[in-house]
């Protein structure tokens, strides 16, 4: 059994046995990996704070043949995001990110862009970035990476460019213009396209002053979350807490 190592972000942990934890890591090179950290609940154990949610770490582990669970041998803390989770909204937002990653990318496969997205979003939050804005930023990119972010620019039916408001298709896979929409339930405002353009060119913002108003942001997130909920077939638990 060779010792493997990965750069990773801890998504969550849960207790198992008397003193152990199961840790869900989002690694840069292999995606989501679950591992047992033996003795991680013992007082003064070698893992310290490195297994707390959202810790950016270098994890050392052994693969076991024909087993899903790896054995975590060591975990070095590269960057901690423990303190920023003192703010309830930030803490809940990060739980939400972690739930989304596990839901949309459950298998072991390299998701480098998503890894860098999560890390840079964490760093932006750590530098005082706005959690609502970064929430929208993360949602949009996650949907884009998953390949399920619909086209909001042209009408799904008549293929004409949507200049004003559009409506999200019932299957959340496209947009209808005002003439083609079968229902006027979920409105898509023009600022959503502007937002998607903006995030394509801009890293997660650390600043407080932002190019979109809270009201615009609310509408943007409503659409993105409708797509997330549709694909998950339920509302993420952490999202209901956030609300």
């Amino acid at each position, binding site marked *: 059994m060779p010792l493997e190592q990965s750069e990773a972000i801890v998504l*969550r942990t849960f*207790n*198992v*046995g*008397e003193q152990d934890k199961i840790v869900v890591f989002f690694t840069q090179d292999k995606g989501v990996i679950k591992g047992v950290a033996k003795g991680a609940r013992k*007082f*003064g154990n*070698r893992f*310290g*704070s*490195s297994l*707390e*949610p*959202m810790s950016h770490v270098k994890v050392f582990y052994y693969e076991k043949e024909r087993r899903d669970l790896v054995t975590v041998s060591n975990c070095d*803390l590269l960057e*901690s995001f*423990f*303190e920023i*989770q*003192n*703010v*309830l909204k930030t*803490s*809940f937002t990060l*739980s*939400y990110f*972690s*739930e989304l990653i596990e839901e949309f990318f459950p298998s072991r496969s390299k998701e480098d862009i998503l890894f860098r997205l999560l890390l840079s979003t964490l760093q932006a939050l750590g530098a005082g970035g706005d959690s609502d804005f970064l929430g929208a930023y993360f949602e949009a990119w996650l949907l884009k990476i998953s390949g399920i972010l619909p086209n909001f620019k042209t009408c799904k039916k008549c293929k004409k460019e949507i200049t004003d408001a559009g409506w999200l298709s019932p299957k959340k896979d496209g947009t209808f213009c005002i003439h083609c929409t079968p229902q006027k339930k979920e409105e898509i405002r023009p600022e959503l396209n502007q937002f998607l353009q903006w995030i394509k060119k801009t890293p997660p913002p650390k600043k407080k002053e932002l190019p979109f108003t809270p009201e615009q942001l609310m509408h943007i997130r409503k659409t993105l979350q409708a797509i997330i909920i549709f694909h998950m077939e339920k509302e993420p*638990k*952490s999202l*209901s*807490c*956030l609300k």
Partner: protein
Amino acid sequence: MLGQDHPLNRLIEELKKIPGIGAKTAQRIAFYLIGLPQEESDSLANAIKEAKRKTFYCSICNSITHIDPCYHCSDEGRDDRLMCIVEEPYNISSIEKTGVFNGRYHVLLGVLSPLKGVGPDELKTEKLIKRVKEGNFKEIIIATNPTVEGEATALYLAKILKSFNVKLTRLAMGLPVGSDIDFADQVTIKKALEGRTELKD
């Protein structure tokens, strides 16, 4: 291989539901229990039944008790001006063992945990708020675990309790006794620095 309807299988299945007990341990315990003399296994089964039937959550502090109010709530020798808030009933015994704390307890029965669907609405704090409002507490020690969830919960409690005229404190976070500074990570050392105390002679 035991059949699905084998009584031993049912026992193993029940044991497996206990947190921390896996399939192998469950099987070992089950075989041990079957090997016991009848009166010993009856006694164990009765102990489980009795414990379940006769214990409940204290109406004041949420601790597990067989008398209401519980032992800690009805003890007149304890200080009514001090409260310690813990996550789970079993946390009380860890604090009691120190012999340092002689106030009252309040058990949250959980922490904020969005991934388990526990948000501020699910964390039942009405009883706590009522106690603080009607009581005569001067200091409330928040003794949730030094984890992200425990910290978030402590800060949430601080927010909802700050309007009352009471001092809010949090258990110190830092170096474990008997450890080596070189092996502590930056968060632990930072917390220890922040929570440092003055040396007095």
